[in-house]
């Protein structure tokens, strides 16, 4: 459930960028890794408070995401989607190398204030997992409120629906793109920090999560925000049950098998809408 929430959060990042700019960001998982590392640096090396580290990491990675959009991805708008996919794959490889050169290939543990457990009716709930679920809920609540009740959020929705119309209405589309990248990268960083106590921090933590988050995003229908979260939770649960009940080896592949079946049966996902081009 908790891991599913992480998948949901990362999938949310994919969906935000896809909805707005029609780019698919394969480097999302590596942004997650970078977020976790920045938080680790802030907390352990500089001795800051966990929450301060959290905010610093989210802001730094968010700013980095905006910069990425401004400098690199702005150049490829209008090129085929495939080129952009490869571009983000290349960026992801660069980030991974950057992380492994800077922080080495050791595994780090991020100290968190969530050490205890609650026992409710015989069920033990660790604070770490609860923190992930609570963090996901809070982030989603904030994003929901932002998109529906602020001028900027509504402008972002308008941009993702029709850029040209949004531009005519006086919305600074380029700025909105950068902001969406910032939000998406920030969400990835937050997911990385929440995940850090569970999986520990190493340079490849993002890749595995990102692949499953993809499955989640497709399951929910690329382009649907509630779908992404829902898909993430479903993928998390599938992984859990496959690991518990099916033979060894199915834990890691079950999400992909479900994904393939989903793509064959209903390619637009659970919450997606299919559109046809009119000639």
């Amino acid at each position, binding site marked *: 459930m908790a891991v599913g929430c992480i998948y949901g959060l990362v999938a949310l990042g994919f969906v935000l960028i896809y909805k707005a700019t029609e780019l698919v960001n394969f480097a999302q998982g590596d942004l997650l890794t970078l977020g976790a590392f920045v938080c680790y640096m802030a907390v352990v090396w500089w001795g800051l408070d966990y929450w301060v580290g959290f905010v610093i990491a989210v802001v730094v990675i968010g700013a980095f995401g905006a910069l990425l959009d401004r400098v690199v991805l702005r150049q490829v*708008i209008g090129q085929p*989607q495939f080129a952009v996919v490869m571009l983000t794959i*290349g960026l992801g490889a660069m980030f991974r190398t950057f992380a*492994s050169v800077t922080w080495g290939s050791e595994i780090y543990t991020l100290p968190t204030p969530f050490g205890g457990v609650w026992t409710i009716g015989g069920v033990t709930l660790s604070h770490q997992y609860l923190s992930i679920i609570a963090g996901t809920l809070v982030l989603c609540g904030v994003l929901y409120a932002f998109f529906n009740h602020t001028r900027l959020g509504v402008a972002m929705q308008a941009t993702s629906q029709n850029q040209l119309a949004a531009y005519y209405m006086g919305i600074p589309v380029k700025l909105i793109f950068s902001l969406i990248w910032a939000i998406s990268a920030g969400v990835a960083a937050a997911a990385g920090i929440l995940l850090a106590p569970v999986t520990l921090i190493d340079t490849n933590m993002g890749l595995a999560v990102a692949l499953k988050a993809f499955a989640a995003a497709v399951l929910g229908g690329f382009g649907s925000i509630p779908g992404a979260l829902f898909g993430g939770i479903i993928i998390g649960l599938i992984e859990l049950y496959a690991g518990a009940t099916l033979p060894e080896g199915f834990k890691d592949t079950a999400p*992909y098998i479900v*994904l393939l079946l989903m793509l064959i049966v209903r390619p637009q996902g659970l919450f997606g809408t299919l559109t046809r081009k009119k000639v």
Partner: protein
Amino acid sequence: MRFPFKTSYNQDIRLFRDRVDVFWYGLLAVAVLVLPLLMDEYYVGESTWVFIYGICGVSLMVLVGYTGLVSLGHAAFLGIGAYAHAFFIMHGAPWVVAVGLAVAITTACGLIVGLPALRMTGIYLAIATLAFSVIIQEVFSRWESVTHGFAGMKVDRPVIFGVAFADDRSFYYLCLFFLVIVLWLTRNLLRAPTGRAWIAIRDSEIAAQSMGVNLAIYKSMAFAYSAGVMGLAGALFAHKIAFLAPDIFNILLSIQFLLLVIVGGLGSLHGALFGAVFVALLPPLIAILRDSIPDSMAEFAVSTGITPVASVGAAVGAFLAKPGVEAGIFGLILVLVILLEPLGMYGRWLKIKLFFSTFPMYKASTFKRQKSYMRSERLR
């Protein structure tokens, strides 16, 4: 500048454009045939990678560059080919039969993957093939009666009709032979109606459909052909690395193949070969640089008296020696190529050629991209 004088429509689809072309390709063939006799055996072995990657590149070029279907899971086909070949060899099948069966099995797998792929486009297809490759990799590590799992599988050098291809030189010629066969087959397919149908699908599915191209047939044909060629590459790959383990055929290898076709130049067979040269020779180049830069920089520092140069050289050497740097360099090159030269190395080659053939008259704007607005792929 040469102006071909066209007297018949067949001239447009000839295998070679004119006699000058034949001359240059002939020269290339002679060079490739003679070179291994002059080179050190180590370099012959490294150049064999160029041919194997070349076959992989042709396979992916047909799918990505000519049909416009993106696959992030081609390493799985390579793995299927390699394992099938090794399995049949181990069970005593003659080499030619084993290769034939490996190619047939991968073609069938390509067809099976291609069928659901007919309903998807763009990013969905990429994700589906990615999922397929993850599943196949898991199958490789779990199906121990065939693949021996993580214990691995040893593959000896091929023996064909009693002739052993034991040393690197003879294996070089074997790979070269298959590359030429694959190139010839693919070129013939591409200049036939099949190839034109593929290109039409790439440029616009709706337009192709309206012109009477059967999307289902041609797309699955592209998938099956691409997978089959990959299976052949897999058989050679198995002999080349001599030891199969499931974690070789991971996503990073698939990404490396995509890098190959993009850096080489999408939509041309030349591009697949340029890309193969690049991908096969970059890792040895990095290794050479890693070993030589600190020393040469230190010598330079001593001879000129500028001492900081030596420490810069040492730092560069240490940086290149860190694990995982190679992937980062590949990533950086990929990003730079997509941003600066979307047509890849072959595109750059065409520009250079045009510059010299039209010498004082070259205009950079010949290749200037037209202003492009965002094209929505949400509405197919």
